[in-house]
């Protein structure tokens, strides 16, 4: 489904990713772990189409299509979703209004009829339960005045409504206490259906206790220095990142 091939990325002439190879198949959950400044978030942003990154080599295909040639909204239409590490507060934009516009943009792309307000509300009320969010959230401005936990749950809620084919979670666990983490993980797990794929970017393996990955990749210095099964995350937890840095050296 997702194929990252020898991807090199710079930010303002500074190399960040130095040749990433990653294959994510349908229904798979891949964890990308790594110390701070290893390039994890850069990889997530480049996949979602954020500006400010220069791809100097390699490429990314999604179902065989050149993902990097697409605008962020085109990527979303094809089923790519990024759960932000820092969801953006947008004062004055009603959360439900925003989400309805997003959902209908995607439906329009797929040739489906747009949902009217009533149909939309019936859908989202169902999805809110998934992440235990209150309906009052719909009337609030996007992420404005949300607690850290609410923001992250709102990301998972949006994911549930938009039903992406590939969800990239960028440090969705950061800043969450254990109860909030469990809520987020539960939401993610209920979206695992054997077809939807996940790339879970995280610094700690804590989230992976709840969202169990098929593969774990360790990113360090802009390269994947080690890949393995779930047990790799446990090793990292036990030995720290210095262990992989030394191993890679």
């Amino acid at each position: 489904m997702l194929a990252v091939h020898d991807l090199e990325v710079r930010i303002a002439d500074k190399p960040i990713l130095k040749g990433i190879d990653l294959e994510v198949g349908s229904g798979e959950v891949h964890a990308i772990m790594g110390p701070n400044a290893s390039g994890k978030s850069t990889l997530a942003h480049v996949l979602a189409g954020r500006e400010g990154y220069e791809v100097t080599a390699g490429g990314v295909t999604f179902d065989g299509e050149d993902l990097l040639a697409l605008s962020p909204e085109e990527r979303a239409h094809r089923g790519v979703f990024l759960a932000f590490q820092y969801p953006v507060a947008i004062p004055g934009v009603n959360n439900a209004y925003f989400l309805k516009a997003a959902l209908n943009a995607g439906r329009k792309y797929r040739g489906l009829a747009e949902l009217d307000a009533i149909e939309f509300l019936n859908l989202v009320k169902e999805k809110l339960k998934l992440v235990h969010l209150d309906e009052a959230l719909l009337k609030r401005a996007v992420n404005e005045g949300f607690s850290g936990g609410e923001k992250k749950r709102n990301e998972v809620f949006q994911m549930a409504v938009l039903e992406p084919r590939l969800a990239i979670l960028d440090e969705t666990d950061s800043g969450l206490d254990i109860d909030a983490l469990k809520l987020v993980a539960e939401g993610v797990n209920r979206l695992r259906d054997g077809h939807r794929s996940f790339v879970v970017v995280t610094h700690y393996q804590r989230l992976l206790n709840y969202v169990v990955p098929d593969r774990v990749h360790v990113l360090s210095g802009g390269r994947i220095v080690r890949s393995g099964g779930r047990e790799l995350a446990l090793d990292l937890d036990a030995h720290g990142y210095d262990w992989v840095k030394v191993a890679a050296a």
Partner: protein
Amino acid sequence: MNVRLISPLEPSDPFLAELARLESRLPAAEPPWLRAIRRRALASFGERGFPGRRDEDWKYTDVSTIAERPLRVALPGVGPLGTGAAGIEAGRIDTNNRDYRYAGLECLELVFVNGHCVSTSAEMNYWALPEGTTVAPLAAMLSDAPPVLRSSIERMADALPDAFAALNAAFTADGAYLAVPDGVALDVPVHLVFLSAPWDEPVAAFPRVCIHLGEGARASVIESYVGMDAQENLTCAVTEIIAAEGARCDHYRVQREHPRSYHVGRLSVSQARDSEVTSFSIVCGARLSRQDIAVRLEGEGASVALHGLYVGDGRRHVDHHTRIDHLLPHTRSEEHYKGVLDGRSRGVFNGTVVVHPDAQKSEAHQSNHNLLLSGEAEIDTKPELQIHADDVICSHGASVGRLDPDALFYLCSRGIEAPAARAILTQAFIDEVLGRLPIAALRLGLTRDLGSGETSAELFSALI
């Protein structure tokens, strides 16, 4: 009275000829005092001429296109439309046009075509207006003007702030007169609709609105200036609000003239003790728009709130000049203006607040925030606080910015097309002003018309 000696105009002066042409169409009964004022005002205009770029107040606004073309005053009951009323009957003016009617707005309505009243809402004939209340076309009041109206017109003519005010004083023949006696609340808003209509040549309209509220009286007035068709008309309007002790006036001015037309408007407000005035100035029309607002807080405890929104695109020019004078203690003012400028449009905001030495314990707050949607749009914003008292609370802030790229990326990453994402963020910026409009019909109508054309967030939210 200190009246400056002004030399009369040459008889050949084209403005004087224009005045003669206008007067030939006015009722013969027009009183001599009014004719004298017209001549004096015209002479005053002749002395000062149109403002130039060297006038500090007009530094960023070039009115040479207005000055250089012949001035043709729109006359009552003439032109290709026939009388305005006949034009309406013949269906040439669509009075159901939603451009100026707000769905669900219950109001008393007066409709003007090029400055002259052509219809008043049928309800006004049998509407139980509170006793002593007058809501009438100004033309109907002038021949036998109540003393307060006459003195108001005379006082304004004695202190003409600029050339356009002088032209209005010389050429105004109609408009609206609203007088609410002491202790009376007019529950229904008065909607004054000024349509600028096609003529065989560009014409100039000079409406005058006088709003006089007695002690403790209340009224809401909406002035809508609407362009009917491609036309380089000029509208030069003057509104005066006099709020006696404890009176409350909500004033809404919506300027959506045709993009080729010119609009110069002035709102002059005098407030006595404990009076409250709220003004909204929404500007999204005209090739060149200039709005002056001058507020005098003349009584202790008087308070004013000025809200504004200007939207520019193409090569349009939108100028707001406001001035608030705090003359006595415990007066309060707040002013919040926002602008959205696209294309090669240019905005000007100049907000002067003067706290006079006697105005201790006063409070003045001002903000002006601007959103530039293109690299070629410009804004000149200048807050000007002159504080001559030491025990006051004043604040001001101005900003010029662009759409937040992080917010844009967030919306697009969810599948919203970039133009729609920009429209959503722009709408949110605008909604902050429109959201304060207390009249729901006005708020919803303007949100729909000024927004992206999609269902507004508020309309949507109402469904939830």
